């Protein structure tokens, strides 16, 4: 039951903050009112920086010294990025790299 409560807490917290980021401009800034310059600045530069942070977060628990040395992760990230830079098809990039990763960790890098 505490598991349920903990999970529910996380879900509600994310839902509330997500809704807040969507409603905030309509609540705090009406027509003709502009947010401060530094908020606009961060809004422009934070997303590219954040996506890079998140990809590091995704592989942060990978053991680069022992085990498979992070080879399947690095390889499949490179494939996802290359495929996306080339074709620009979200589903293709995610699908191919994820399936390949699953095959790698289930067969070669067990």
């Amino acid at each position, binding site marked *: 039951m505490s598991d349920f409560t903990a*999970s529910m*807490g*996380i*879900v509600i*917290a*994310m*839902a509330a*903050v*997500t*809704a*807040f*980021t*969507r*409603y*905030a*401009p*309509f609540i705090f*800034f*009406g*027509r003709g009112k502009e*947010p401060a310059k*530094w908020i606009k*600045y*961060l*809004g422009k*530069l*934070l*997303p*590219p*920086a*954040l*996506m*890079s*942070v*998140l*990809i*590091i977060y*995704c*592989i*942060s*628990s990978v053991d680069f010294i022992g085990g498979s040395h992070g080879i399947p992760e690095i390889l*499949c*990230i490179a494939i*996802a*990025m290359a495929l*996306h*830079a080339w074709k620009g098809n*979200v*589903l293709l*990039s*995610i*699908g191919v*790299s*994820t399936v390949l*990763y*699953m*095959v*790698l*960790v*289930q067969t070669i890098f067990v």
Partner: protein
Amino acid sequence: MGNLLNILKKSFKYTLPVLFGYIPLGFAFGILLASKGYGPEWAFFMSVIIFSGTGQYLIVSFLAAGASIPHVILMTFLLHFRYFFYGLSMIDKYHKIGKSKWYMIFGLTDETYAILSTETPPKDISRGAFYTAVTFMNHCYWIIGSTLGAIVGNILPFNTKGIEFVMTALFAVLVVEQWKAHKNHIPALIGFVIPIISLVILGSEHFLIPALLAVSVILMCMRPIFEKEERL
């Protein structure tokens, strides 16, 4: 009723690209969630009240790690900071549209924003009705895809080891899209280097928040340089 059906029918074709994106992406989210022991009712509930692809992929790792609430709040806030700017650019469009506006704001995802900010509604349908229909249909695709994924993930006997890479792949794709969308690549590079340093020093359990704060502070410090460049 006939009118409502007409609105949905006419708006449907605008949502087709989202249909083909949300069903499989939602499905993968459902399988991922199921692999951590959560049933379809969780997938359904989350997709109804959160309705964010990136957020919901991330939440799976939060649930698996038992992340603290402040951690979830800070991460979600930074991740969804961009919605604030989508909303900002929609203030004029959503003006005087009626009460359904509050649902549309709730459902302003990356993909919904992409449609609503570029497409003009079909002639015989009001703007409000069109926006509501598009938002609602997108929401439905996401709910259906993720719930189906969780159902299949819970009954299918196939080996899902490695399925968690789908989140990594999503962010890899987003890194490329951000790279293409911006001329200035320094923020993206700061976003790579700082967390790696933080990870080496602090370890995987504690590196994220300091890295996020450091990245934000560094970006703020570089503001005079970057803002000058923008004008040139």
